[in-house]
């Protein structure tokens, strides 16, 4: 059974300017021990999908559909019921570790609090577990860090504390929302290597939300590419990168300058602007920026369909080479 199974999820926000549809009916599931990479640009709905799962949507947001966590519908649960799961069986790491840690509490107090509330551990046992966990996320001198405040730690260290906190209750599902975006590259490399290591050891289902295809390439088993609140392509990490089938995935890969290639030629940019969620085009949302679009793309929204074992895409074109 999948750890989390999201079916036909729609997330919308009421704004003074009208309704904004951030997620347009997506389906995805994550299994135990699997790492799924969710790739998309701003406005793709990649974060909001999982904010809905955590019950953390902004007040003007509404979600419809089903989110099954270990078979139980958790969408629409009250915060008391959700708190049983949140931070316990399902935890989340955010982009900015500074804002996610309470500034006036010591690291140790914040870590042990998770254990005393969710696992009912005593103070001493909780502290021992916390120190062990800090060690696991490769924090030097964990006993000393327990007595420090968040601002005394560097950015990379704070993010590791966040990961430790998220892992304390041995969650079934760990959601990492742009976990390394705020970090420097050398620190990012450390945090990613840590996450890779933990993933292998803990057998947790891991959702990695990011805009950086490089990060996904190193960590994910399966990749989902989102655009305008929909999954446009899905597949195993090996084939998505070598053989992208959706024009948007292809465009993303082509537009990235790569450190392992000498760049002389112009980058192949995706033309146009990211979608305006209030005025999505008819049919396929990517159509105005797509080099392969034809009439059908304007009339009919492409469904996510199987194209090969384990691979799905939402595009009316069967093959992309034909027109280019």
């Amino acid at each position, binding site marked *: 059974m999948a750890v989390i199974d999201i079916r036909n999820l729609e997330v919308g926000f009421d704004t003074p300017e009208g309704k904004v549809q951030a997620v347009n009916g997506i389906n995805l599931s994550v299994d135990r021990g699997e790492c799924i990479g969710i790739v998309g*640009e*701003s406005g793709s709905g990649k974060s909001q999908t999982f904010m809905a799962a955590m019950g953390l949507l902004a007040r003007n947001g509404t979600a419809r559909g089903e989110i099954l966590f270990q078979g139980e519908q958790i969408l629409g649960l009250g915060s008391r019921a959700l708190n049983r799961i949140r931070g316990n069986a399902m935890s989340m790491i955010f982009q900015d570790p500074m804002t996610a840690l309470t500034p006036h509490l010591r690291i140790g107090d914040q870590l042990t609090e998770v254990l005393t509330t969710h696992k009912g551990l005593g103070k001493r046992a909780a502290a021992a577990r916390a120190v062990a966990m800090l060690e696991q996320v490769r924090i030097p001198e964990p006993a000393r860090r327990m007595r420090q405040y968040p601002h005394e730690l*560097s*950015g*990379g*260290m704070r993010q590791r504390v966040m990961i430790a906190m998220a892992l304390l209750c041995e969650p079934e599902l760990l959601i990492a929302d742009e976990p390394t975006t705020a970090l*420097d*590259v*050398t*620190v*990012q*490399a*450390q945090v*990613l*290597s840590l996450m890779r290591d933990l993933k292998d050891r803990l057998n947790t289902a891991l959702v990695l939300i990011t*805009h*950086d*295809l*490089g*990060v*996904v*390439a*190193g960590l994910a088993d399966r990749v989902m590419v989102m655009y305008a609140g929909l999954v446009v392509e899905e597949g195993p*990490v*090996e084939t998505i*990168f*070598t053989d992208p089938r959706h024009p948007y995935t292809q*465009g*993303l*890969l082509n*537009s*990235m*300058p*790569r*450190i*392992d*290639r*000498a*760049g002389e030629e*112009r*980058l*192949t*940019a*995706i*033309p146009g*602007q*990211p979608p*305006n969620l209030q005025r999505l085009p008819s049919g396929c949302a990517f159509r105005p*920026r797509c080099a392969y679009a034809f009439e059908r793309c304007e009339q009919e929204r492409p469904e996510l369909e199987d194209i090969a074992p384990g691979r799905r895409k939402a595009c009316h074109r069967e093959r992309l080479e034909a027109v280019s």
Partner: protein
Amino acid sequence: MSDVLLDVADLKVHFPIPTGGLIGGRTRWLKAVDGVSFSVKRGETLGIVGESGCGKSTLGRAILRLIAPSAGRVLWLGQDLSGLSQEEMRRHRREMQIIFQDPLASLDPRMTVGDIIAEPLTALEPDLPKAEIKERVRSMMSKVGLLPEMINRYPHEFSGGQYQRIGVARAMIVRPALIVCDEPVSALDVSIQAQIVNLLMDLQAEFGLTLLFISHDLSVVRHISHRILVLYLGRVMELADRDSLYREARHPYTRALISAVPVPDPLIERSKRIEFLSGDLPSPIDPPSGCVFRTRCPHANDLCAAKVPDLEPVGTDHQVACHRWREIG
């Protein structure tokens, strides 16, 4: 022999940090940029890379005198800019412009896009007739890929990818010789990044622009730069032309940086060897003695703590500031 446009010599920017109580508190100095030297030829792109806190943005701003340098010289076509008065420096701004990291924050929300783009022109050439200014703004807008009929719109009416085009148009309107690009694509979506990088490269080809491209993204820097300067804690670690830097980086820091960048290819990304750095970035208020990188360097020895390494030539157009580059290989 191409001519040197900008020559920076031993540039230092130190910020005072007041410490201690009301009386008897002594001022300590945050050494954001600490003795940086390099020169840029006309028409080339110099990439300036480094992680947060390395002083790359401060360096860019000090060259433009948006921050006053504490010591050192900035020679513009042989003329020293550091001694100039505010007013004299203002007249030089026609030749050197800047593009900012956060495109929206760098646009005054209460001005129309036309007025924003025209601002350097109206400030530096006040005698220009209004119609002429408008004409130039419209043609610059279409040059950077904005619809000229949007001239009376306000910044918030544009989308994320277009803000930076407005910033580019503003910098280009006075036809400067040099543009300092301070992380110009870091805040942009992947698909938009490529558009702006292409735009900058096109403008460079058309106008013979010189670019100082400040970025933490080594992939983008590799794509756009001719030469690259690697900064760490306010000091130059390595300065080389692009190919030799990415092919055979000499400095341990540069190597760590390059190896850490994720590659969007699962086979390469999972098999590559990453050179991890130990420890944290030291405080720029109290940098390590000798080589500033030694506290995190796997190769550091006693000499590194005792003596500051000079930039030594490694080959043609390749310099490195490391005592042990020969031994490391």
